[in-house]
């Protein structure tokens, strides 16, 4: 290998290294991107898409800033904000699930209490019917006792 081609290879390697260093994605941006792709296919994607969209807009700003200027404090700040917004979307989604659980429990409670009340009513009606069926016999049963009382007096 002659000298100019050696220089060329070294030059290419150095410039490759330099460009690789210049475009290293900051960890905040990597984390925000990962968090967004996980959230968009998860609970937040279904239950809190508006909050997630809000986060996406900030993530887009971070990506754009990174594409235009590389790793700057602005990129890191936007990525930080995007990550927090994604976490908030997740938190709100879980809160929504819990709110639904509360609503379901209240609704089921009403159904259970309603059926309990209906059973009680049915039992009461049955008892009343039994009492009414027994009523005509009662005076006959009581008559000898009444006679007995009269006889005593």
């Amino acid at each position, binding site marked *: 290998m002659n000298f100019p081609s050696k220089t060329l290879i070294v030059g290419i390697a150095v410039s490759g290294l330099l460009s690789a260093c210049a475009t290293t994605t900051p960890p905040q941006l990597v984390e925000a991107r990962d968090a967004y792709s996980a959230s968009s296919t998860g609970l937040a994607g279904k239950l809190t898409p508006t909050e997630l969209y809000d986060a996406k807009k900030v993530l887009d700003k971070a990506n754009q800033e990174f594409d235009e200027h590389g790793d700057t*404090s*602005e990129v890191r*700040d*936007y990525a*930080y*904000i995007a990550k*927090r*917004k994604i*976490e*908030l979307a997740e*938190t*709100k989604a*879980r*809160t929504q699930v*819990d*709110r639904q*659980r*509360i609503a379901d*429990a*209240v609704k*089921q*409670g009403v159904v*259970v*209490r309603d*059926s*309990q009340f209906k*059973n009680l009513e049915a039992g009461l009606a049955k008892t009343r019917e039994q009492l009414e069926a027994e009523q005509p016999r009662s005076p006959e049963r009581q008559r000898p006792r009444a006679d007995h009382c009269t006889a005593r007096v």
Partner: protein
Amino acid sequence: MFKKTVLSVAAFAITGCASVQIPADSLERSEASVRAAEELGANGVPTARLHLQMAKDQTEAAKRMAENGDERAILVLARAEADAELALGMAREVSTHTEAERASEDLKAVKARVNP
């Protein structure tokens, strides 16, 4: 010559000492979220407390940066706002989760009374 020097010194002093105006609505939102999170018991939830503290620290940092004319103050305040909102969301999540657990327990108790 003297006039020029005085003018340039004055211009330097003005630009050097100029403070950055941080958005009042952003500051209000951040502080309101911090207060609401504290009222909801964020200090009792470790993760929420952490974000609450971060929000407070970043708000103070943003104010200092703004006084020193650092334009990054605006983004640092936005970071504080994001942390404050997250702390509030986390406190709300814990409170709602506790309520949901209680509702499930109540339902179990009612069912047990119906079908002992």
